[in-house]
């Protein structure tokens, strides 16, 4: 692994540079560190950082640009005749890359041999034996392109090694020369560290940007292949991988909102009452036992809830409610997913409400007791109204969680989209299997996917809609909670 070696070499230069920089500074101060501007270590650190930063920066940029650049180079030499019917340049290039990788693994000589049919079919079986299976036979053009690719890669690798080591040595030379007793080493090093800290903080911004841009680009290509009016206002979800599918978000949105509604119906009263009981009524013994138990529910991964829905709650609801009432025979249903998601959200609602209830000033409670109110009257008529905005914020945050939840609905809610043409009875039947936005994102993006078909790209449009919805709810909720907190501070 040459890159690993390169990193080790640069690091070694930096370590040596640290020692040399430190001793040069000490020498310029006649061995008395009091005459130096900074502590001796800073002079060493300055040299080490000036070695590492440009070298690693160059390495990173090179590694990002290199594959794109070589791809373009080789791709332009590939004649159009090499691209067979039903294929594309991109697919051929992925073959080229795999063959090139295989040649590297097999360690074939780069000099030219006679290329004929038998050589290529031998090569294919040789590649297969090292774990690189190719779908079709290797064409002569592909083989040549692969050789070019490999040669370009080797050449680029050599240049990269030289450039990175030169950058490291250059950094060393510059910083070593400026090192003397009056050089303000500490200030320079600390400025460098501060830049690193700012860069780390900006990763959050970059992530958000990445999320939005990646989905925006793919969504745009989706809307080029599929009219946006159909997506937002159509009433039917019927993907068909032969083309001509109906991809509308409304049926999925209905499932999402219905399941989230049931989840909130379960979690908000239970969570709220649990929070009230634990903060106002419970004895210390009950609290030390019950509070961690409820918080434990929050630490359980969603896949566990999903399996719980699939193997326990689903069959239970079907056998004791759906079948006797004649409402459906499916174990995965809106009620299953909603109920289990509700359980998942209980700790979320209760811990948020707990914070909010505790933020209500004690003076308001004392005032109410002083007027002769009982505890429950105080809670209902003083604390809850005062905490209402915060509680609304908590419910909104829980709703945003419910809308974005994936594993519980994948395992508990079923895969069939709501059908608006079947009538209202079917739509509101809680024992009907119904799918959600998140389930469809998973199902359209797993398995064999073709990133040119609208059936795959629709997942990005769904993802973006989901992101916008949850973002809206979060911003609104945070705004309400913050405004409310300020009232009593």
């Amino acid at each position, binding site marked *: 692994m040459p890159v690993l070696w390169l990193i080790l070499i640069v690091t070694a230069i930096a370590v040596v540079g640290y020692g040399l920089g430190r001793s040069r500074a000490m020498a310029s101060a006649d061995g008395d560190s009091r005459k130096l501007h900074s502590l001796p270590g800073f002079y060493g650190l300055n040299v080490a950082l000036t070695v590492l930063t440009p070298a690693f920066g160059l390495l990173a940029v090179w590694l990002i640009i290199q594959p794109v650049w070589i791809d373009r180079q080789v791709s332009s030499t590939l004649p159009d005749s090499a691209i067979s019917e039903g294929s594309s340049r991109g697919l051929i290039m992925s073959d080229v890359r795999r063959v090139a990788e295989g040649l590297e693994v097999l360690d074939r000589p780069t000099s030219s041999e006679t290329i004929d049919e038998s050589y290529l079919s031998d090569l294919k079986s040789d590649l297969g034996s090292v774990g690189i299976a190719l779908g079709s036979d290797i064409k002569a053009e592909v083989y040549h392109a692969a050789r070019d690719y490999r040669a370009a890669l080797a050449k680029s690798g050599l240049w990269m090694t030289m450039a990175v080591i030169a950058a490291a040595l250059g950094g060393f030379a510059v910083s070593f020369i400026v090192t003397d007793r009056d050089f303000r080493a500490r200030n320079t090093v600390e400025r460098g560290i501060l830049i690193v800290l*700012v860069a780390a903080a900006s990763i959050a911004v970059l992530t958000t940007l990445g999320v939005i841009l990646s*989905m925006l680009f793919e969504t745009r290509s989706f809307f080029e292949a599929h009219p946006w009016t159909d997506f937002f206002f159509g009433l039917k979800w019927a993907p068909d991988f032969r083309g001509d599918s109906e991809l509308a978000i409304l049926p999925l949105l209905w499932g999402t909102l219905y399941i989230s509604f049931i989840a909130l119906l379960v979690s908000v009263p239970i969570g709220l*009452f649990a929070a009230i009981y634990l903060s106002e009524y419970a004895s210390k013994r009950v609290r030390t036992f*019950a509070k961690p138990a*409820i918080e434990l529910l929050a630490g359980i991964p969603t896949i566990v809830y999903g399996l719980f829905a699939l*193997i326990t709650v689903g069959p239970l609801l079907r056998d004791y409610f759906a079948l006797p009432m004649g409402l459906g025979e499916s174990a995965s249903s809106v009620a299953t997913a909603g109920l289990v998601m509700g359980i998942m959200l*209980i700790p979320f609602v209760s811990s948020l409400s707990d914070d909010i209830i505790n933020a209500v000033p004690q003076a308001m409670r004392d005032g109410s007791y002083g007027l002769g109110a009982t505890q429950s009257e105080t809670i209902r008529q003083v604390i809850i109204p005062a905490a209402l905005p915060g509680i609304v914020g908590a419910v909104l945050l829980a709703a945003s969680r419910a809308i974005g939840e994936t*594993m519980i609905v994948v395992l508990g809610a079923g895969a069939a989209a709501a059908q608006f043409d079947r009538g209202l009875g079917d739509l509101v039947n809680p024992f009907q299997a119904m799918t959600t936005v998140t389930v469809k994102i998973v199902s359209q993006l797993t398995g064999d996917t073709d990133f040119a078909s609208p059936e795959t790209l629709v997942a990005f449009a769904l993802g973006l809609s989901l992101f916008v919805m*949850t973002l809206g709810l979060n911003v609104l909720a945070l705004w309400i909670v913050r405004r409310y907190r300020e009232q009593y501070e």
Partner: protein
Amino acid sequence: MTEVSASPHSASLLVQDAHTKKRNAAEARFRLYGAIAVGISVLCLVFLLVSIARNGAGAFLQTFVTLEVTLDEAKLDKKGNRDPADLAKVSTFGYAPLIKTAMNTVIEAEGIEIDGLKKPEALISKEAAAQLRNFVLANPEVIGETHEFLFLASGRIDGYFKGRVTLESAGLDSKITPEQLLLADALKDAGALETRFNWGFITSPDASENRPEASGLGVAILGSFYMMLVVLALSLPIGVAASIYLEEFAPKNWFTDLVEVNISNLAAVPSIVFGILGLAIFINFAGLPQSAPIVGGLVLTLMTLPTIIIATRAALKAVPPSIREAALGVGASRMQTVTHHVLPLAMPGILTGTIIGLAQALGETAPLLLIGMVAFVREYPGAPPEGFFDPASALPVQIFNWTQRADPAFVERASGAIIVLLLFLLIMNTLAIILRRRFERRW
């Protein structure tokens, strides 16, 4: 309390009038609702854990059959030269007859007679032939000898001893007959068949749809471990650096506000959106391989960062300003104050937050589905650093994978895997609590 005039002063304080009774009843009711809510929550937790434990405990036990197999030279090495290349040409189909013969020998030796018994070798897992072949290829000198082997029993037989398969259900099943179950009973009495702890469940790789008995969590645990290494190596330094900047250095300006808003929003973005990001950027754009722990690790890092940043900032905030002022007072720079004093004091809090963030990342499933971790992987990933780029599975995804399979034995496997996952989470959270208890300082 609203209708003061309703209770005249006539009654004694010791006798409750109607209105007071009503108010006290309302109080008791309200209190009861709260107790019920707490009770329901705790019951849900207990019900969840009991259901998983009951379904999953069986996965750790497995039925094994002990057989004496004669490794017939005429079948395994016709030329008799022990050449590894020739030995490798005999496929697992060449080994199946040996097991069949061994099975018949046992039945004869024990004098078991069951009417209508066909295909007694169906008791043994299809994995057994592969196990035998690997053993012979590793030790060619054993050919021609008779050795004792411990084979996995087939999934149906295992299910019979766990109560999942009954004589009635076997009558309708194409994979097992009631006679074969009777044979299994007879073998158990003879001591050739036993149920014991199954280390293979934790160490072996996944197995195909038809052999649930051989499937294990080895690759998934290793894949999850690699991902956690990536997450730890990236999110801890980045998270700590970002928090130090925001808490200690950041001026109040638009950039700081932007970062703050982004962090609080990222903490609430649905996890599946991070999967879409990983697919679009790390796989389609940067060309990293699918199903690789490195991609999973990168996606989970982005997800964990907000958690770690929030915990770290709280830990930094908890260090009293007097420490900073003292350090600045004796001439330390702001950077020295942070690295020499504030950061070491905040370290326990930071580590606790990191472990909790890692525990969250370990259980996360949805984003991993999108970056191809659902693929069927039987090969262990190599040693790091190349291993980070090899295909692997992850614990929660393996659980999801098993729930999608038809054989009911996989439900037991999935629940068993959840027990393993919860065990890991329990260990991590306990570690976090111990760290907090041991090192936390109150100022």
